């Protein structure tokens, strides 16, 4: 490669809480397992990073009944945080996946303050790069979203967890918050290092023949392209209001979608549902971002971040 062509290669790297990601595309929690499944299609090191399946202090079997329901341009899920617990993660899983990425984000949830604190303490003391605090899972009782709806609850859980967290703390926000910007500001004030948004939208599907909700929990979380315009607007609202970095997500399917989130103020993005539609889509999204930047003469994402 000549010097001239090197100069034209756009720089996709971004800094997120003092970690340099080679590009801003992160695999979203709950859609990539613990990263190992991705290896059939690409090496996870090509990504900016990945966020693990949501971990809780104790193992959880997850929800019974139907866990998935497809909608127009969307997917509803009610998995219920099925996971092996933080101890198994730290002792058995982490050693196998540590080498897969230089930004290994451990997503941690809980059902009460003590659970959250103990889980964050254990996982953040292990060799992970960042904690993503899940205060937005809509599918388990008190399993997170309860803390992400009201501003004072969100502030209280982040305040409680912060001293226990030995790594950068990303807080994953719920689009179901009564006042998302207010939650974001409160979470920032309590010491969050960055924010990720949005988790799934609380949604309902009804089986009219059985006259019952499709999901045992009645509601489930909606993701996919259907939520993208709302997630984009929320990303911009929050990014405008806070001083800490924002990781945007919600319905991203293409590099152009990802660029929209950057223009809306996101430092990085997460991709979830699209990776389940096509397992090798994340590297394609990264390529498309690079192509777009090259075609538009953008050498660094900072040039377009938050321009809207």
């Amino acid at each position: 490669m000549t010097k001239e062509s090197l100069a034209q290669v756009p720089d996709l790297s971004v800094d997120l809480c003092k970690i340099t990601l080679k590009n801003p595309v992160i695999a979203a929690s709950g859609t990539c397992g613990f990263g190992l499944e991705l290896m059939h299609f690409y090496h996870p090191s090509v990504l900016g990073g990945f966020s693990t399946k949501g971990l809780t202090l104790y193992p959880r079997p997850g929800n019974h009944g139907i866990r998935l329901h497809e909608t127009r341009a969307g997917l509803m899920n009610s998995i219920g945080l099925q996971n092996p617990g933080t101890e198994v993660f730290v002792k058995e899983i982490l050693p196998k996946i540590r080498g897969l990425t230089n930004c290994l984000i451990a997503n941690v949830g809980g059902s009460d303050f003590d659970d959250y604190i103990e889980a964050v303490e254990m996982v953040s003391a292990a060799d992970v790069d960042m904690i993503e605090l899940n205060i937005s899972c809509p599918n388990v009782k008190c399993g997170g979203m309860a803390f992400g709806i009201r501003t004072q609850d969100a502030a209280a859980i982040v305040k409680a967890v912060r001293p226990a967290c030995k790594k950068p703390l990303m807080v994953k926000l719920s689009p179901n918050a009564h006042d998302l910007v207010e939650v974001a500001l409160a979470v920032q004030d309590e010491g969050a290092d960055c924010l990720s948004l949005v988790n799934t939208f609380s949604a309902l599907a009804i089986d009219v023949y059985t006259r019952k909700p499709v999901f045992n929990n009645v509601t489930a979380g909606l993701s996919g392209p259907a939520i993208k315009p709302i997630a984009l607007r929320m990303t911009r609202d929050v990014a405008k209001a806070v001083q800490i970095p924002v990781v945007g997500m919600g319905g991203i399917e293409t590099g152009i979608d990802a660029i929209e989130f950057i223009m809306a103020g996101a430092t990085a993005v997460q991709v979830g549902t699209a990776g389940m539609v096509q397992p090798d889509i994340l590297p394609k999204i990264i390529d498309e971002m690079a192509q777009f930047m090259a075609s538009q003469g953008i050498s660094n994402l900072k040039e377009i971040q938050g321009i809207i």
Partner: protein
Amino acid sequence: MTTDLYTVISNKQVAPSIFSMTVKDHLNLPVQPGQFHMLKTLAAEPLLPRPLSINDVENETLTFLYEVKGDGTKNLAALTTGQQLRITGPLGQGFNIDGIVGNARLPKVLLVAGGIGIAPFKYLARSLAKKATVSLAAGFRSNPYAIDDLKEFVDDIKIATEDGSYGVEGRVTLVFNPVDFDVVIACGPTPMMRAVKEMCKQAKVKCILSMEARMACGIGACLGCTIRTTKGMLRVCADGPVFDANEVIFND
């Protein structure tokens, strides 16, 4: 496993709502009977690919036998020769031929199919041929299909139809007794699977089930397709779809 665009060689209706699609297997990856692929046309909607078990693998082609049930399979049925679709696979844990045959010389294996549950049995029967004595018990609501495809590989065929239009009138469980076999392998609707498991348990005959579930990722990442088992919630896509019947816990 991989994900790539495949080209349709043929896609034809073989019975009401039942289609058989053959694609060019340009990658020629090894496929176990009982494994499945995720198939999606190039249309944006529906979002998710559809999991289809492998019906046959032959001469650098893959064949899928499927029932049109919703928008995803409707799109698949509309594909014509030369068109492309995205296929991810082969996926999951298929039938363990050595485990089924074991140390016995020509063990007696029964395949129990309910409706479109017959789909994985052609490639399985082909793989078992000469290693086992294979019988088929197939149940349908009405007209049978895909039976002729299997004749070459099985020694005995019994058919039940719910409307009595062909074979024995009633459920497939009427046309076999598990004690006549060393291994029973079933694929079909949940009530049939539950019944076959119970019959084999009573008869103390080894029983293997190929399970079905709604899936999103198909690769073991999203945990959307789990079923209750004696080993906890297991993923149909990655831990299955083939399970020992003793492991599977059917909800009441």
